[in-house]
Each structure stands twice: as structure tokens, then as C-alpha cells.
């Protein structure tokens, strides 16, 4: 069994703007140096407040108890949803034997990727779903 090696990582966030609602798409916030379709994603993990209470940008992360209410979708630079509605519980490392989700390396469009709620209970406006992405830079 293998586990991921972190070469580069960045915490990205999808903010629950407005009244939290089931089915809405909450897109990842722009990170200037990662938003030029220049990121080859090969792994990621998700955090709730149990693992990371607030992001470095001081945004409150969704409560740990809501880890079974959110799904995540990654889109590539051809707008293909190559990971579609994956439950975030599956991507929380400490809940899954310490393993980090591995993917076939793919150029992602960060700001086209999003999370959705399947149940809004316990999630508050402006909280964020925090995700650490593990990546290479295109051409590096």
C-alpha cells in the first residue's frame, strides 16, 4: 500500500455564501498563482473544524459533525467533472486510516470545481470547506 508524498500543497476553500442550501454549487475561491490551469493535481484531503478550526484567511471551517453532509467535485481544464460528487468524509485522512486520496495526475480548473451540500443542518453562512491540494506545477 502506498501513501502520498507532498511535493507542493496549498489549502483551498469553498465558501458557503448566502443561506446554506442543498444542491447549490459553492465554487472554490480563486488562488491567484493556482488559477491559470497550471496545477496538476495528484492528491487531496479535506478538513473540517476537527482538523483545522479556521483557515489561514481566518474563515471558520464547517463543523466536524457535518462531515457526512458535503460532496465535492473536481473539474479539469476541459470542464470534465472527473471526480463527481465525492463524499468529503472519504477524503478526511484521520477518518480513513491515515491514507490520502490519490488521483491520476490531471490539470484542474480550481475555480470551476465546487462542493455541494446534501444536508444544510449545522452549516452556517460564510463557513468554508477546506481542502489541501497536492500538486505539481505544469511544466515543472
Amino acid at each position, binding site marked *: 500500500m502506498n501513501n502520498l508524498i507532498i511535493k507542493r500543497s496549498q489549502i483551498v476553500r469553498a465558501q458557503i455564501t448566502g443561506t446554506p442550501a442543498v444542491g447549490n454549487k459553492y465554487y472554490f475561491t480563486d488562488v491567484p498563482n493556482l488559477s491559470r490551469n497550471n496545477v496538476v493535481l495528484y492528491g487531496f484531503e479535506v478538513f473540517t473544524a476537527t*482538523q483545522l478550526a479556521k483557515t489561514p484567511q481566518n474563515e471558520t471551517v464547517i463543523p466536524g459533525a457535518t462531515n457526512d453532509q458535503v460532496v465535492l467535485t473536481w473539474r479539469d481544464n476541459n470542464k470534465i467533472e472527473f471526480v463527481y460528487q465525492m463524499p468529503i468524509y472519504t477524503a478526511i485522512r484521520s477518518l480513513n486510516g*491515515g491514507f490520502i486520496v490519490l488521483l491520476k495526475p490531471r490539470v484542474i480548473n480550481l475555480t470551476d470545481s465546487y462542493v455541494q451540500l446534501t444536508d444544510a443542518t449545522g452549516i452556517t453562512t460564510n463557513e468554508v470547506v477546506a481542502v489541501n491540494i497536492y500538486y505539481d506545477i505544469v511544466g515543472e
Partner: protein
Amino acid sequence: MAAFKVISPLVEYLEKQGCIKAFAGMEGEKSKLVTLNFPAGPQNGDPFYFASDSSLDYSNACITAIELVDVVTLIDSNTNQGYKDNITATAAASGYLVFSDNKRQEIAVIPLYNLIRRINSGKTTFLKIDTQIWQNCYVAVTDIAAFSPTTTAFTFRVSYVPKY
């Protein structure tokens, strides 16, 4: 007859690219404990920089794994301000570690909670960081009230491969 293992093409590709290795694999050739005290008057978001340690700079080492030693793993550590308790896992959820290079560009940002090995079923966090300047790397917190700055310190076990 020699044993052979079956490897999927994707796993083989990821191994060749240096993206994965066996979770029970070697962490590094060497490892050391590094402690970090809180500075005076710590504030949320302030970088708490590590002291200079040229043996962990990119010119001398590739950092291959890191572990945050929490108070359950080791109750206290010998820092340059004497013995201090290590932080709790609960407090670790309010902090993150940043690796930076010689231009202070962020190489990797990792929440501290993730680096506590016992919480992650004993699996260490593998790295391949080889452009770092150790004294440009830092810990920051998002809720200083979750910590006891005068009585606790951060302790990391850093695994690395020397380049000389």
C-alpha cells in the same frame, strides 16, 4: 523462483513521478527533533519562524517526512527556554505549518493536526521538499487562545536525506 509483485500502471507512474511511496517505507536517512517556542506577544496569523538550522536547508538536505509530536506522544521537550509541554491535538487544529523557499514563496501549507502520526493510524506525512530555507519556514495559528504560549512549545520530528 523469485517473487514478483503486480503493480498497476498508474501506481507505477505515480512512483516514478515521486508522488507516492509505501506507507511503511523509509522516512529518511536521518531524523531530528526540532522545537519551536512561541515568540513574545504571539498574535493570530503571525509567522513563528524556526531558528536557523543549516542542516535542514535545501543546500544540505531534502526533507522527506515530518511529524508533529503532541503531548500524548511525548509529554514535554527540551527547548532553548527549558522543558516545555508539547501542544495538544485539540490545539493543533488551530495551527498550520508553512514551508518556504529562499524567496519566501510558500512551497507547502499543512495543518498541524494532520502531522500527528498517532491520529492518522500511524502513517507519517511524506514530503519531498528540497528548495526550503529552514529559517523561512514557520508555524502560524488562527486562535492563539487555544494555546498556552508560556508553558508549551511545538515539537516536530523532521526526517531528511542529507545531500552531502
